[in-house]
C-alpha cells in the first residue's frame, strides 16, 4: 500500500504539469495533511520508490480501484522514464498494451531509486480514494485471475440460465418465462456491467458512455420482476385495489431511469444518482414487503417460490445497500459478485416456481381431461342405454303393428267376403223378383194388370242396372249418364217395343256423371218415363221417336230433357192411368232435391233440373 507514503497537492484548475511539480517539490504536503477538497479536482500524488538490488520479479504493478483518470509519470532523477495513462474511464487507445484500466506495469529496474508522480482526476463526484497498491505482477495477476474466473463461472451460469429461459419461452410461449427472461437479462447485464466487462466488451474506447447503462440494467431487471410478480400472483384480478397502487411501479422505474441518465450524462454526478438509488431501495423494499404481506395467504405452493426469491432479492439488496453506505464507491467491487450469486439463487427459485406452476397446470389439465373422458364415457353409456330402450320400444311397437296389420288384413278379407255375399244376395234377389214377375206376365190376361206388371219389371230392371253399375269397384261410385240411359233404354224397349220400331235420339255429353245417391232415383224416373211413353204415346204412331238430352248448367246443376213425339191427346184419355206415374216422378225429383216441368209440344216434354 502506498497511501501513507504519498505527498499530495490539489490542483483545482488542472493547469499544472508534471515537470513544474518536479521542480517545485515543496508545494506537496503529506496526504494525511491534505485538506478535503473538491471531489472533481485534479490531485497530484508523489512518492519515491526504492527498488531492491536482488529483485526476483522484474514487473511491478501499480493498481487501484474506481478512479476515473490517472496519469502515471515515472522519473529517475530528473529524467522521465515513462508516462502511462490509465483509469476507469480512459479509452482503450490511450492505454498501453502492458497496462489495464485499473493498473499500470511500472518499468522498474532493480537497485534504483525512482520518483513516482500521479495525476488523478475522478469525475464521478465521489470523493476519490487513493488506494494505490504496488505489488509484483505475479501476485496481482493471480488476484485478477481468481476474480475473473469467479466472475466467468457466475456469468456463465447466468448465460446458461438466460438461454434456458429463452428456450423455455420460445417453446411454451408461457408469458411468465418472458418476464423471467427480462429479469435475468436485466440483472445479468447489471452484474456484468458493474464488474466492468460490459465496458471492455462494448465501449472500450468510451467507457464513460458504457457506464451510463449500469443502473438501467437494474431497473430493467426490476421491471421484469414486477411483471413476473404481477402475472404470477394474478394481482390484477385477485387484488384490484392493491393493483391500483402497484401499476405505477413501471412509471416510477422509468422516471428514475430518465432522471439517472439525465444527471449522469450532463453532470457525471454518479455519487448523487447513487444516493438517490439508495433512497429508492427502501421504497422498492416496502413495495415488495407489502406485496408479500398482501398476497402471502393466498399463494399456492408454486407461487411461494417467487416469494422466497423476492425475500432473497430483498436481503441481497439490503446487503448491497449497507455495503454501499459504508464502502461508497468501493462497494462496486463486491456488488457484482454478491448480485450474481443472488441472481442465480433467485433465478433457481423462480424457475422452480414456474416449473411447479406448469406442473400443476399439467396436473389440473390431466384431471380435467380425465373428468371429461369420464363424462364422455358416461354419456356414451346413457346414449347406448337410450338406443337400446328405443330399439326395444320400436321392436314392441313393430310387433304390435304387425299384429294389427295381420288383424286388419283378416278383417279386410272378412269384409270383402261379406260384401261379396251381400252383393250376391242383392243381385240374386233382384234376379229372383225379375224372373218371378217375368214368369207371371204371360199368365196375366187383364190389360191393366199387365201394364202394372210390366212397369214393375221395368223398375226392377232399372234397379238391377243401377246395382250393376254402382257395385263395380274399378269405376268407383259414379255412373256415366250416357251409358246408363243407353242400356236402360235398350232393356225397356225389349219389354215394351218388341218390334224395335222406336228411334231413340240421345244427345248427352260423355263426361256427365251421376252420383250413387241419385242413380237409383234417376233410374226409376227414367223407367217410369219410358214406360209411360211406350204404353200411351205411340199407339199406331208411324214414326215413334224419343229424344233424351242433358247439359250441365253449372258445376253442380244438370238439366235433363226427355221428350217424345207421341200423341198428346192420350194424356186426357188415360187420365187415371197417369195417377201413379207423374206423382212418383215428382216425388223422386223432390227426393233428388230437383225441379220438374212438363210441357206439351209435339208430344210430351219433361224437363228436370237436378243438383249433381
Amino acid at each position, binding site marked *: 500500500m502506498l497511501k501513507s507514503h504519498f505527498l499530495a497537492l490539489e490542483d483545482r484548475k488542472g493547469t499544472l504539469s508534471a515537470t513544474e511539480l518536479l521542480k517545485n517539490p515543496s508545494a506537496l504536503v503529506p496526504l494525511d495533511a491534505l485538506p478535503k477538497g473538491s471531489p472533481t479536482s485534479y490531485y497530484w500524488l508523489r512518492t519515491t520508490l526504492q527498488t531492491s538490488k536482488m529483485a526476483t520479479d522484474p514487473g511491478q504493478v501499480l493498481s487501484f480501484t474506481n478512479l476515473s483518470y490517472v496519469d502515471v509519470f515515472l522519473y529517475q532523477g530528473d529524467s522521465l522514464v515513462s508516462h502511462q495513462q490509465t483509469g476507469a474511464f480512459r479509452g482503450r487507445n490511450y492505454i498501453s498494451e502492458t497496462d489495464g484500466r485499473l493498473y499500470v506495469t511500472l518499468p522498474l529496474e532493480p537497485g534504483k531509486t525512482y520518483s513516482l508522480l500521479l495525476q488523478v482526476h475522478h469525475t464521478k463526484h465521489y470523493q476519490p480514494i487513493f488506494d494505490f497498491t504496488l505489488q509484483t505482477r505475479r501476485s496481482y495477476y493471480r488476484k485478477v485471475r481468481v476474480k475473473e474466473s469467479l466472475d466467468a463461472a457466475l456469468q456463465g451460469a447466468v448465460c446458461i440460465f438466460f438461454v434456458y429461459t429463452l428456450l423455455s419461452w420460445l417453446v411454451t410461449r408461457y408469458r411468465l418465462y418472458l418476464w423471467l427472461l427480462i429479469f435475468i437479462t436485466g440483472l445479468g447485464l447489471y452484474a456484468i456491467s458493474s464488474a466492468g466487462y460490459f465496458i471492455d466488451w462494448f465501449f472500450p474506447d468510451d467507457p464513460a458512455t458504457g457506464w451510463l447503462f449500469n443502473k438501467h440494467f437494474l431497473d430493467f431487471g426490476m421491471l421484469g420482476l414486477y411483471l413476473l410478480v404481477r402475472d404470477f400472483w394474478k394481482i390484477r384480478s385477485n387484488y384490484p385495489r392493491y393493483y391500483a397502487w402497484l401499476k405505477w411501479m413501471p412509471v416510477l422505474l422509468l422516471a428514475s431511469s430518465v432522471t439517472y441518465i439525465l444527471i449522469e450524462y450532463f453532470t457525471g454526478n454518479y455519487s448523487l444518482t447513487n444516493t438517490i438509488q439508495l433512497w429508492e431501495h427502501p421504497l422498492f423494499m416496502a413495495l415488495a414487503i407489502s406485496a408479500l404481506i398482501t398476497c402471502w395467504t393466498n399463494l399456492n405452493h408454486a407461487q411461494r417460490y417467487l416469494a422466497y426469491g423476492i425475500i432473497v432479492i430483498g436481503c441481497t439488496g439490503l446487503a448491497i445497500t449497507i455495503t454501499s453506505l459504508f464502502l461508497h464507491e468501493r462497494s462496486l467491487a463486491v456488488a457484482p459478485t454478491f448480485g450474481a450469486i443472488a441472481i442465480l439463487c433467485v433465478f433457481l427459485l423462480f424457475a422452480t416456481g414456474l416449473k411447479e406452476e406448469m406442473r400443476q397446470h399439467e396436473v389440473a389439465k390431466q384431471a380435467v381431461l380425465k373428468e371429461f373422458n369420464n363424462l364422455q364415457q358416461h354419456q356414451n353409456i346413457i346414449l347406448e342405454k337410450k338406443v337400446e330402450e328405443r330399439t326395444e320400444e320400436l321392436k314392441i311397437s313393430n310387433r304390435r303393428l304387425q299384429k294389427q296389420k295381420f288383424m286388419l288384413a283378416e278383417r279386410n278379407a272378412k269384409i270383402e267376403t261379406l260384401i261379396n255375399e251381400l252383393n250376391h244376395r242383392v243381385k240374386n234377389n233382384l234376379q229372383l223378383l225379375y224372373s218371378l214377375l217375368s214368369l207371371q206376365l204371360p199368365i196375366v190376361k187383364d190389360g191393366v194388370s199387365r201394364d202394372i206388371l210390366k212397369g214393375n219389371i221395368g223398375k226392377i230392371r232399372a234397379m238391377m242396372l243401377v246395382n250393376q253399375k254402382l257395385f263395380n269397384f274399378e269405376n268407383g261410385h259414379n255412373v256415366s249418364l250416357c251409358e246408363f240411359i243407353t242400356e236402360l233404354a235398350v232393356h225397356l224397349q225389349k219389354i215394351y217395343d218388341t218390334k224395335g220400331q222406336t228411334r231413340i235420339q240421345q244427345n248427352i255429353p260423355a263426361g256427365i256423371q251421376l252420383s250413387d*245417391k241419385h242413380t237409383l232415383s234417376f233410374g*226409376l224416373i227414367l223407367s217410369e218415363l219410358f214406360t209411360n211413353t211406350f204404353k200411351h204415346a205411340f199407339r199406331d204412331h208411324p214414326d215413334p221417336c224419343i229424344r233424351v238430352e242433358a247439359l250441365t248448367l253449372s258445376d253442380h246443376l244438370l238439366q235433363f230433357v226427355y221428350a217424345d213425339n207421341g200423341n198428346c191427346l192420350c194424356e186426357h184419355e188415360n187420365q187415371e192411368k197417369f195417377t201413379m206415374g207423374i206423382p*212418383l216422378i215428382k*216425388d*223422386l225429383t*223432390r*227426393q233428388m*232435391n230437383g225441379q220438374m216441368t212438363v210441357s206439351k209440344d209435339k208430344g210430351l216434354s219433361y224437363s228436370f233440373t237436378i243438383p249433381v
Partner: protein
Amino acid sequence: MVRILIVEDEIIIARFIERQLQSNFNCSTRIAVSSAEARTAMADVLPHLLLCDIHLEDELSGIHLVSELRRRYAFEVIFITSYQTRTIIEQAAAANPANYLIKPIDEMQLFAGVQLVISRIQSNGQTGKAFLQPNTLFSDTELRILQLIREKKTTQEIAETLHLSRYTIKNHRHAICRKLDLRDENNALLKWVAENGVFIK
C-alpha cells in the same frame, strides 16, 4: 187427430208408410225427405209423433236431428231403420225413442209398432207442441216464475226464491195472464200450468 211426420229419404218407402198409417189410424201425415225439410215441417205441423229413419243424406243424422228437435218441441219418436248393430241402437236409445222398428217392415209390424205409441199420445196430451222458449212469448223471469208455479210455489215463496218483492211477482203473473189471454184470476193460471206444465223447460 194425431199429427205424424215421416222423415225418410226414400220417398217410395215414405209413401208406403204414409198409406199404411192413413188407412189404419185417424191421423194427418207429412213427409220430409231430408233433415232440412224435417226442420221446416216440424215448425209447420208440430207433430205428436215422428217416424224417423236414422240414415239420412248418407250419414247417421237421424239421431242428431231428433236430439236437436227435442230441445224445442215435445213429441214422441219411432226410429224406422235398417241398422241393427248394437252401437247404433245404443246411440239411438240416448234420444229416448218410443220404439225402434227394423227394416224391412211390413204392414202388421208397422201397425203394431205405431199403435201403442199413438194410444199413449192420445191419453196424456203431453206432445204436439213447441216448448216455451225464452224471449219469444215470455221473458226469462216469467219462465222462471212459471216453473216455480208448476212446482206448486205460492207467490210469497216465489218472491223469496227469486229475491224479489211480492208485488213484482204479482205484476209478472198479471203480465203472463195477459199474454195467455187468461182471465185475471189465480185459478186460471194454475189450471193452465197444470195442463201445459210439460212444455215449460
